[in-house]
C-alpha cells in the first residue's frame, strides 16, 4: 500500500513531514510521488500563507472526486488556523494536530483502514501507538550535564517521533515549537501555539546520531530560537548553552559538519550566542537576523518589540566576534501605513548592514494575523516599486561581498545538480550559492574546494579543484 504526502510552507513543516513519513513507513506504507497511485494522501498545510491554503482546497476537491472511483483516505495536519480546521473537518477524512502524531496510527485504524502492519495477526491500539513512539530519548543518556526537563508532563510534540530524513547529508532538527511574539503580520502564534522547547538532551542525541552518520549540514529549527528554554522556567539550558554543547560535541566528534539555526529574534538575541558561534568551528558562521523594517515606527506597528538601536547592537556583536560571517535578513515592504520616508529607512538599513542576502516580501495580509483587520493601504504598484528598489539596493551590497570571493579557493558543500546542464551546485559555510562544471553525482553530499572565477550578487561560479575535502 502506498501513501503520498504534500508539504507546504516553511522548514518547520518539512521537519514535521519527515516525522509523518516515519510513522507511515513504520505502518508499512511505501511512499509514492504520484498521487494517483496512493491509497492514503496527506497534506502538511500552512494557514500562514493564502496561496498555500488555496492549494489545500484545490487539492482536496480533486482528491474527493477520486473517491467515487477508488478507496482513498485523506488527512491534513500542519500549521492550521482554527477557521480552516473547521472547514477541513468537512473535507478530509482525518484532521489532526501535529502534537497528536503519535495517535495517528490509531486514528487511521479506527477509520477502518487496514494498514500493511495491521494486516499482521495482532492489532491492538497499544501496538499501533508503539509504531509512533519515540525510539529513544534523553533518559537513556546523561548528556554533558543536560538538566532534567520539567517534571510536569508536557503536551506531546511532533519531535517525539523519530523522523525519516529526506536527505543523507543535510537535516533539520526541531528544537522549539510555537511563538510568543505575536508580530502583527504573522499567524504562527495562532496556528502553532505558545513556545514549547524540546529537551536539550534529546536535541543533543539527535544531533549526535546525525553527526555519527556523517551528516554535513544540520539546521536547528524554531520560530524564535533565542527564547529556547525560557518556557521551562529555569529547568532547561539557554540557547547559547545549547549551541555551546552542540558545538563542543561536533568539534570533538572528528566529523566535518556545519551547524546552522533559524530563526533568531533581534530582541532576544544575546551576545553569548555569538560568542558560542565564535568558539566552535562546527557552528557555521552565518546569521539570519530578520530586520523586517528599518523604521522604528513600522517596527512598533509590526509589534516586533525591538528598535533599530537594538538591531544595530546585535549586528555589532556579529561584526566584532564573527568577522567572516555572512548576514541574511527578512524584510517586508509596503506594510500597512508604511510611508515613503519609512521605506527610505529600510533602504538605509540595507546599506548600513550590508547584507549578503535578504528575503524581501511585499506585504499581504494573512488571515488570522492581527494586521488582517487593518486596511492594506499601500497600493500594489507602490509595493512592487519598493520591492524592485530594495532588491536593487540589496544586489549592490551583496556583490561587494561576492566580488571578494573572486580567485579565492572556497570550500563548499555540494547539494545537488544545478539547473545549468552539466553543473553541480552547493553552498559555502556562509550559504552563498556556488556552481561548478561537473556531472560526478558522487560528489553530492561532500565538501569540495572550488576556485571562484565569476561572481553575481547572490551566487558565484568556479572550477572544481579538490574533491571530497575535510572542512
Amino acid at each position, binding site marked *: 500500500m502506498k501513501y503520498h504526502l504534500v508539504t507546504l510552507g516553511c522548514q518547520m513543516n518539512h521537519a514535521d513531514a519527515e516525522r509523518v513519513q516515519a510513522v507511515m513507513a513504520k505502518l508499512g506504507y511505501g511512499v509514492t510521488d504520484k498521487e494517483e497511485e496512493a491509497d492514503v494522501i496527506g497534506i502538511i498545510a500552512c494557514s500562514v500563507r493564502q496561496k498555500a491554503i488555496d492549494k489545500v482546497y484545490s487539492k482536496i476537491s480533486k482528491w474527493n472526486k477520486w473517491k467515487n472511483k477508488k478507496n482513498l483516505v485523506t488527512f491534513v495536519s500542519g500549521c492550521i488556523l482554527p477557521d480552516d480546521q473547521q472547514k477541513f473537518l468537512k473535507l478530509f477524512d482525518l484532521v489532526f494536530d501535529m502534537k497528536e502524531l503519535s495517535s495517528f496510527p490509531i486514528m487511521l485504524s479506527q477509520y477502518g483502514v487496514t494498514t500493511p502492519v495491521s494486516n499482521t495477526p495482532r492489532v491492538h491500539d497499544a501496538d499501533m501507538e508503539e509504531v509512533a513512539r519515540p525510539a529513544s530519548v534523553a533518559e537513556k543518556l546523561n548528556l554533558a550535564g543536560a538538566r532534567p526537563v520539567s517534571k510536569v508532563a508536557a503536551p506531546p510534540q511532533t519531535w517525539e517521533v523519530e523522523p525519516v530524513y529526506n536527505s543523507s547529508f543535510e537535516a533539520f532538527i526541531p528544537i522549539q515549537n510555537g511563538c510568543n511574539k505575536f508580530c*502583527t503580520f504573522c499567524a504562527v502564534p495562532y496556528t502553532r501555539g505558545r513556545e514549547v522547547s524540546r529537551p536539550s538532551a534529546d536535541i543533543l542525541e539527535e544531533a549526535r546520531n546525525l553527526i555519527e552518520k556523517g551528516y554535513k549540514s544540520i539546521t536547528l529549527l524554531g520560530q524564535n530560537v533565542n527564547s529556547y528554554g525560557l518556557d521551562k522556567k529555569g529547568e532547561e539550558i539557554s540557547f547559547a548553552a545549547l549551541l555551546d554543547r552542540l558545538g563542543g560535541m561536533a568539534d570533538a566528534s572528528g566529523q566535518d559538519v556545519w551547524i546552522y539555526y533559524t530563526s533568531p529574534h533581534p530582541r532576544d538575541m544575546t551576545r553569548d550566542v555569538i560568542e558560542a558561534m565564535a568558539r566552535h568551528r562546527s557552528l557555521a558562521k552565518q546569521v539570519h537576523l530578520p530586520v523586517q523594517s528599518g523604521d*522604528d*515606527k513600522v517596527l*512598533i*506597528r*509590526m*509589534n516586533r*518589540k525591538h*528598535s533599530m*538601536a*537594538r538591531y544595530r547592537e546585535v549586528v555589532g556583536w556579529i561584526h566584532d566576534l564573527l568577522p567572516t560571517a555572512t548576514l541574511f535578513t527578512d524584510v517586508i515592504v509596503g506594510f500597512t501605513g508604511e510611508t515613503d520616508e519609512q521605506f527610505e529607512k529600510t533602504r538605509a538599513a540595507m546599506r548600513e548592514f550590508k547584507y549578503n542576502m535578504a528575503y524581501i516580501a511585499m506585504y499581504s495580509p494573512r488571515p488570522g494575523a*492581527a494586521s488582517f*483587520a487593518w486596511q492594506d493601504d499601500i497600493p500594489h504598484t507602490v509595493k512592487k516599486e519598493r520591492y524592485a528598489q530594495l532588491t536593487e539596493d540589496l544586489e549592490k551590497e551583496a556583490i561587494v561581498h561576492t566580488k571578494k570571493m573572486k580567485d579565492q579557493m572556497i570550500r563548499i558543500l555540494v547539494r545537488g545538480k544545478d539547473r545549468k546542464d552539466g553543473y553541480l551546485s552547493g553552498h559555502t559555510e556562509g550559504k552563498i550559492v556556488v556552481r561548478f562544471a561537473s556531472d560526478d553525482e558522487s560528489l553530492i553530499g561532500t565538501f569540495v574546494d572550488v576556485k571562484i572565477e565569476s561572481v553575481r550578487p547572490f551566487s558565484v561560479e568556479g572550477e572544481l579543484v579538490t574533491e571530497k575535502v575535510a572542512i
Partner: protein
Amino acid sequence: MTAGLPFLFVASGTGISPFHSFVKQYEGLDYQVLHGVRLAEESYEREEYESGRYIACTSQDEKGDFHGRVTDYLIANPVNSDTLCYLCGNCDMIHDVFDILEKQGVKSENILTEVYF
C-alpha cells in the same frame, strides 16, 4: 528590576490587561497607570491598582480622572526622562505616545510597546 526608577504604563482599552499582574509581581514599584477609554464606566480595572496610581483618561465623558486622551494628559503632565515606559493597546495611540515621550527626553530603549490592535 531597575530598582527605584519610575514606571509609566499607558494602555488603551483592553491593552490594560498585562499591567496589573506586573504590578502585583513587583511589589513596591513606583508606577503610574494611564488608561485611555471612551467612557469612565470602561475603566474596569481601576480597583486592581493602589489609589492614586491609576488615571482614567476619558475622551467622551467627563467622569474619568482626566477628560481627554492619554496623549493630552502626557502633554499636560510631562514625565521624567528616566521613566521606564510600557505602552500597550492601539497602534496609533502607541505611535503618538512614543513621539511625546521621546520629545520629553525618554530614550527609545526605555519605551517598550505591545500592539494589540
